[in-house]
């Protein structure tokens, strides 16, 4: 039987997961049309950290430092963000089926990011901020559409997400069709997600995401109680409204930041927290940070498949996550209902 979460178990889990992430990241950097040895990767990373010149060929230097490393970092940060956002929405809505994609939050964020690119292209911070606003407005809409007099039901909430998602997708397509002059990515890139876009925003996005994840982590104990219900949580001492506002905003912030650089990648926030709970239990002090690591590993793995399976062409990352995620969703839906 599963043991209760202790500080020691949390620490060991996170150390193991970071080691796995490091190994997977190195392998992901090594794999591609031009194969690179792990030793070369280590040399370049060491050189980057110490500020010296690495003893590898300039081609390898460029491939690793300027192409693959930023992409790997992007996959890591986006995977972590979507998984933690999924964990947060699931706890807040007491619904194991909640996820930024299914609830339409990711598409709302994409709409915000696209609008910012169309109307304020020169302002780099505009994209994540507008995506955050889009995500926040969407979750508020879905929340209210999903409510009944007796609280939110699983089916109604998912239905509200589906309707909102399809409306927002149409708005995204409309905006991208009329805004032909801007340097926008394709409709596909926005709605199925991809990591091939520019990575200049990466440090800013990573900043937003790390801050959002840390804030959610510090609310983990309160989220444990909110998973059981608002009323018992309040009776047990949780400042329910305050925690809800903080976590909704943080989850929207990290979803918005992730979508602003990667487009809408589905199902990550659904599968990962579920898998973590299955192995490690439902304590959010574990589920939040472990989901961040497992989500990063998963998306790194999916992205490596996406860019190698039909090389030299690339699949959109969302194709891979949906192929895995949709059957998991069906399985969960049957179990929860």
């Amino acid at each position: 039987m599963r043991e209760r979460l202790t500080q020691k178990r949390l620490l060991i889990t996170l150390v193991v997961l970071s080691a796995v992430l490091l190994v997977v990241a190195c392998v992901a950097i090594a794999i591609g049309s031009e194969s690179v040895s792990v030793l070369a990767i280590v040399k370049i990373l060491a050189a980057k950290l110490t500020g010296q010149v690495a003893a590898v060929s300039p081609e390898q230097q460029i491939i690793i430092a300027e192409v693959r490393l930023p992409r790997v970092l992007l996959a890591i940060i986006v995977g972590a963000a979507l998984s933690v956002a999924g964990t947060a929405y699931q706890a807040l809505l007491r619904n194991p089926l909640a996820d930024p994609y299914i609830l339409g939050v990711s598409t709302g964020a994409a709409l915000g990011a696209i609008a910012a690119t169309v109307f304020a292209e020169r302002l780099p911070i505009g994209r994540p901020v507008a995506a955050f606003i889009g995500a926040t407005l969407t979750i508020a809409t879905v929340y209210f559409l999903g409510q009944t007099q007796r609280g939110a039901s699983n089916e109604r909430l998912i239905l509200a997400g589906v309707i909102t998602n399809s409306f927002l997708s149409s708005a995204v397509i409309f905006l991208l069709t009329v805004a032909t002059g801007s340097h926008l990515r394709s409709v596909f890139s926005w709605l199925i997600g991809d990591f091939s876009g520019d990575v200049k925003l990466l440090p800013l996005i990573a900043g937003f995401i790390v801050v959002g994840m840390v804030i959610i982590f510090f609310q983990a104990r309160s989220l444990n109680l909110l998973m059981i219900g608002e009323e018992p949580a309040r009776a047990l001492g949780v400042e329910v409204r305050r925690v809800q506002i903080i976590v909704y905003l943080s989850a929207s912030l990290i979803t918005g930041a992730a979508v602003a650089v990667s487009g809408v990648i589905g199902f990550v926030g659904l599968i990962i927290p579920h898998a973590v709970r299955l192995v490690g239990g439902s304590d959010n002090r574990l589920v939040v940070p472990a989901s961040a690591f497992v989500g990063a590993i998963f998306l790194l793995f999916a992205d490596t498949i996406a860019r190698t399976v039909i090389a030299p062409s690339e699949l959109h990352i969302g194709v891979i996550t949906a192929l895995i995620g949709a059957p998991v969703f069906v399985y969960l839906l049957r179990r929860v209902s």
Partner: protein
Amino acid sequence: MLEVKDIRFDYQAAVLKGISFTLQRGEVLAVLGPNGAGKSTLMKILIGLLAPSRGEVLLDGKNLKTLPRKLLARWLGYVAQETIVRFPLTAMEFVLQGRFAQGRLLGFETDDDLHEAKRAMEMTETYAFACRLVHELSGGERQRVTLARALASRPRLLVLDEPIANLDISHQVKLLELTRRLAHEEGLAAIVVTHELNLAAEFASRVLLLQAGEMLACGTPDEVMTEAHLCALFEAKLLVDQNPVSHAPRVTVVAPPQMTLENRNGK
């Protein structure tokens, strides 16, 4: 210990008015009344989820309104009608949630927390399934685990809102017996909302009758569970006599004769 002073609660119209009573340690108060009488609203006021529009609730002389949420959570144990757990959570993890108000931000459970959780589970006879998942427990087991969670903070007042509504008679008796024993042994005051009139008469030391948001009567079961009171309260034909074993009031439903074709035609 608990003093409720002339509370009123308005929500569009008055939901509760003029409610006053006191409760001492060791006492179990049953709150009875038809659906919509304001029982749940009263419970929400008692656990600080709603603030009364007028009047005050004092717990050991302190006004609930002025108590910080965490302190209130330590003093009060709350058991709802039903607990739905959609995530895998063991009974022990669930009971430890009752120690939330004692911990800090990310604080991991201390030895003290574990000791109190174990003690609460032993009192409710649930320690044997500490490692089982809550959503796999039976209704009766789950209610006892919820009671253990309420007890884990060593509360002064237990508030149980229809805790036996979904249980069979054997589990109903078990839970109320446990509540009465805890009130007596631990020096707690307990308030139980229920529709089970006979069980209330057996297990409560005092009874409060609530009718359309107002107090119809409050006192010992013998004093207030009279035929006149109960028939008026529930607008039903009820017979109240004495339980031959416990001598507590016994309520029997007197159903109107079944309409058949024959007696409808006056034969």
